[in-house]
């Protein structure tokens, strides 16, 4: 998994990788040559007392050292570039993937985990890439060189090397095998840390209000302890691996002397070979140490690669159709242009169940919302109103039945085109960090100042925006927390109005408004939406009395539909709702 991922990412940097390999090999060769020259200076220069030779060899040494430093720096530069580029690319891929996800997939992973994967997990892979470039290329060269030279010196003694390698492999495999699940778990625990902290930030007022800091500290401490325990376990394993390997390699030099001594004694080996052999064993040790460094990082990166692949390999349940219809019924309509009459929304026998839930949330819902009319949806809390609206822009896909806009099945349209047709005011008012203007321009990126004010005016938000010291440039905190509930809601409405789409969805969008503002707002937006298909979810009967069609939703069924007056006659459920509001409003 890790290797596959790395291979794929590196294939885009073939040239650089080849260059790194060549540079590192030159660097490693220079590195191997330098000690030889050292020895030559001593043997041929100093012992022989040949000053000229010393200077000559010294010159060579300086030259090779210069080559070495240049190649090492060049390799380091390329390595850094490639490693960070693949990290950047991975983050990019993850981001793009999550953008293609539907709410369901985002929900499965959870925002905090996706964030960790795109930052911390990617960083681990970067770290590994760097080590591979710096160490893993040189290490095999030194390792193989050491072995070849050792075998060359004495074949029989080389058996020790042959025995040592499997022993080392076994030690490494055993430890690495244990490390990978630990690291996998560790990254998961890091997710949890992020999740708890994020909740503590968002829910700060609830925590403080109920004075549960103690509880939260404990809750975090649990997660923190578990993460620490996990990290400690892996750190201890790594701490044990190093000495073990060192011991095995060191011990092999002891065996070399023992068996070598006997072979020399028996006259089967030259004396000089022994010292040389020990030197090569040392060479091999260095290579192994370098590789070890990589192998200590690799398990964590492997666990991270797995987690990244998990995201990248998830296919969004909701995606563009394989063969999209040629033309979209009505492209985004802009003010002034005639509105094509093709934005009628039709639900035919639509059912929906959340995955894992027993009962469907929506069951056999059918209705037609015509262009230029307002269709209201009313029903008890949890009756499925938001779910119903979410089916239209395909945040969710109906489990049965069909939904069409302007006669085109929503599933046959490319997602982007479909969503272009829809302007949504979600039930949860969500604003982004930035300024008021930036948030409004989410609805229409090119909108100029006057257009923004127009939308604000209609959404009854112009007054308070004007009152802000910075007006349209006033800062907005994450989520919009520096605005009152009703202000936030109105900004979301203004944002949607700016989009100027043929279909409007208002999900309980007037709930935080006082009745006066509510009335004014609806009066102001009515002319703007006259040509659009409007779906409104509302709790207040007063909001929807004049809707062309009212759907009464109960436990996922449309139990009645009609106009206010029709329903007042025919639908007991609707009467009950209306009555309850009268009761609420009129009796003390």
């Amino acid at each position, binding site marked *: 998994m890790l290797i596959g991922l790395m291979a794929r990412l590196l294939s885009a940097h073939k040239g650089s990788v080849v260059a790194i390999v060549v540079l590192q090999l030159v660097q490693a060769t220079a590195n191997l040559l330098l000690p030889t020259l050292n020895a030559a200076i001593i043997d041929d220069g100093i012992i022989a007392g040949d000053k000229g030779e010393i200077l000559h060899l010294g010159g060579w040494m300086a030259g090779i050292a210069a080559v070495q430093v240049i190649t090492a720096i060049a390799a380091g530069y390329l390595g850094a570039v490639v490693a960070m580029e693949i990290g950047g690319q991975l983050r990019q891929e993850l981001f793009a993937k999550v953008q293609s996800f539907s709410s369901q997939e985002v929900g499965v992973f959870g925002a905090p985990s996706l964030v960790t994967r795109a930052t911390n997990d990617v960083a681990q892979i970067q770290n590994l890439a760097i080590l591979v470039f710096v160490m893993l290329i040189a290490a095999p060269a030194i390792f193989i060189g050491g072995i070849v030279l050792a075998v060359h010196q004495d074949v029989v003694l080389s058996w020790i090397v042959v025995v040592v390698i499997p022993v080392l492999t076994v030690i490494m495999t055993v430890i690495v095998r244990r490390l990978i699940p630990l690291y996998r778990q560790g990254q998961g625990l890091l997710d949890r840390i992020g999740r708890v902290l994020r909740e503590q930030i968002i829910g700060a007022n609830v925590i403080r209000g109920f004075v549960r800091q103690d509880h939260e500290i404990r809750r975090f401490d649990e997660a923190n302890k578990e993460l620490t325990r996990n990290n400690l376990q892996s750190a201890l394993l790594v701490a044990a691996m190093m000495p073990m390997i060192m011991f095995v390699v060191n011990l092999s030099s002891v065996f070399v002397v023992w068996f070598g001594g006997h072979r020399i004694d028996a006259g089967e080996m030259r004396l000089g070979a022994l010292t040389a052999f020990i030197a090569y064993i040392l060479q091999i040790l260095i290579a192994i140490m370098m590789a070890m460094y990589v192998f200590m990082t690799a398990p964590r990166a492997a666990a991270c690669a797995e987690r990244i692949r998990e995201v990248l390999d998830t296919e969004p349940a909701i995606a563009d159709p394989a063969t999209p219809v040629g033309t979209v019924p009505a492209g985004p309509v802009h003010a002034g242009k005639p509105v094509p009459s093709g934005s009628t929304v039709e639900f035919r026998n639509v059912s929906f169940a959340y995955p894992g839930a027993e009962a469907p949330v929506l069951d056999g819902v059918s209705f037609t919302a015509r262009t230029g009319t307002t269709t209201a949806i009313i029903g008890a809390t949890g009756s499925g109103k938001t779910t119903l609206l979410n089916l239209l822009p395909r945040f969710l896909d109906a489990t049965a039945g069909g939904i069409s806009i302007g006669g085109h099945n929503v599933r046959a349209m490319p997602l982007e085109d479909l969503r272009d047709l829809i302007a949504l005011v979600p039930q949860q008012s969500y604003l*982004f960090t930035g300024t008021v203007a930036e948030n409004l321009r989410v609805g229409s990126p090119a909108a100029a100042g006057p257009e923004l004010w127009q939308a604000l005016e209609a959404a009854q938000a112009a007054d308070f925006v004007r009152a802000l010291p910075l007006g349209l440039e006033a800062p907005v905190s994450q989520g919009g927390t520096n605005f009152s509930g009703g202000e936030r809601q109105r900004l979301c409405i203004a944002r949607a109005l700016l989009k100027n789409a043929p279909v409007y969805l208002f999900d309980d969008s007037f709930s935080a408004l006082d009745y006066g503002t509510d009335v004014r707002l609806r009066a102001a937006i009515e002319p703007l939406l006259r040509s659009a298909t409007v779906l409104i979810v509302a709790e207040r009967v007063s909001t929807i009395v004049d809707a062309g069609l009212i759907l009464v939703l109960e436990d996922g069924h449309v139990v009645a539909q009609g106009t206010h007056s029709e329903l007042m006659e025919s639908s007991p459920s609707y009467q009950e709702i209306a009555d*309850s509001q009268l009761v609420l*409003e009129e009796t003390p």
Partner: protein
Amino acid sequence: MSRERAHRAGTTAGPGVPERIKWQTAARLLSLLLPLKWRMVGVIAATCAFVTLNVAAPKVLGDATDVVVQGFLGGSLDEQELAERLLAVSAMYVGASLFSWIQGSLTATAVQRLSYGLRGSVEQKLHVLPSSHFEEQRRGDVLSRATNDVDNISQALNQLLNQLIMSLLMLSAALAMMLWLSPLLALIAVLSVPVSTAITVLVARHSQAHFKEQWSSTGALTAQLEEFFTGHEVVKAFGRQEASAESFRGFNDKLTRSSTRAQYLSGIVQPLLMFVANLNYIAVAVVGALQVTAGAMTIGGLQAFFQFSRLFSQPVGQIGGMLNLMQSCLASAERVFELLDAPEIPPDSAVPAVSANGAGKLHRAGSPRKLHVLRKSSNGRKLRAPGTSRAPWNRGAVAGRVTFEDVSFSYTPGTPVVKDLSFTVDPGQTVAIVGHTGAGKTTVVNLLMRFYELDSGRILVDSTDIATIPRDELRSAFGTVLQDAWLFTGSIRENIEYGRPGATDADIVAAARASHVDQFVRSLPAGYATMLGNDGDSLSRGQRQLVSIARAQLAGRSILVLDEATSSVDSRTELQIRHAMERLREGHTSFVIAHRLSTVRDADLILVMDHGRIVEHGTHQQLMARRGLYKDLYEAQFAGREQVPAVQEAEQ
């Protein structure tokens, strides 16, 4: 879209005196190891033992080789002798590995303790940060500090502690040996040290800025991702994927660029130092050869000297490399400390005998770690002015008289949100706050619960100025349903229980039933054990409000605050829980904020707010008689039914 703000958030200490800050950060990080000093002593001792054995073992192995040589020359191998020597070597290697293992394990535990403490103090800090902090800083950045930065510190520190000490020991040992062998050559060898240091410092100074940027862009990127992933539906609904991808790319490129530079610069040090060492080696060879020729030194001595100069230059290179690792570590540490040093909410001004306030808890909960070490200024919370006199505050028996006296407040200086607010609520009364959206109703609640501090005036609860009551004690008197119904990851049961930990199942079900939660929970396959994840989004918004009401209901506190508690609950359900709500309010002072004026009609006192002032107050009848804002608001409610068509006609 949020680039500017992120930039603002990302900027750390100003451009001046970065060196000093760096050393301060380093000192502070080291001081965190202070409580672990015995462990560190152990690390050093084990390292010493390891280095000694590791250096001595080859020497003994050399002796063993000599035995072989002697055997070769003498004709027969002294097996006994050889075996003894080799056993000794083996024993030394066993010892070396053992000490190395001890050293590694001790380091690992020390580092993990430290990261545990750091994460813990970051989290505890969250509870004492003022609300405004999170309006200025994005969540993701804070998260990144607690995860990515602490993780980086711990990885870097692990390596540093493992190798720095060893390298330093090797260095000094080699230097000592060199001095002993030839002071002149040692001088030449040491000459390379200033050059190496200069190179290291020069590079480090450059790489530091890049490391800083690397970690601050990591924070910014995390913030960006967190925000987009949280609001991904809005992004998709408005087809803004391309725009958000664009802004993501900006951050991503910045991170990629800065980390490439940091990595490259820090990677440059070791090769450069190696080069210096090689040149130095040549110099030693030339001068050494002269010395030998002059008879000042033996060839054997020179050979040994060469070996030690290798031992000397190797750790110099390693230390150079590690210094750069340290830059990365310090950049992260600075970010963590910055968060830990962020201004806190002003400390509670008086300590009650049996304190149950947050500060006391912070210290208790942090049992294994020494909090005061982590926090630079642990002032306030411990040193609360003991002399502040205040009326006795008995939280168990809060009667619930609430008085606002000339209260003024502004979120941002210069734009007052609440102005000269004065009113009194008698115990057991229900007070309703009504007004247009943005009038300041929620703000009144925020002030009452001391989520924010007043600019002027005072608020009294039972004749005690709340500014003198420890916040947590004050808040323990309140049961609240805040305007944003927020639920935690956990089961529905846990979420209801949040109001009163340890409540019995019967109590929980009773509260759930009264607030109409039971009705929908029972239809869920897992019932009360149903897990809510992802900001509670597996419940509808109205359902979340109902759970919040159940939570407040179960809490059973003296003063009740309901801020738009049923705004998304349909009227039939609201009617059903109405009696429960009434019962809940009975005998408790209650603050009710609602747009549905019928909900507030039977309140004992209605405060009509407009632009931060109370413009009218009284009972429903009184206010209706006045024909002011209240009457307008009240009538707007009915206007809907009869007049909406009329309004539209007027528009046409």
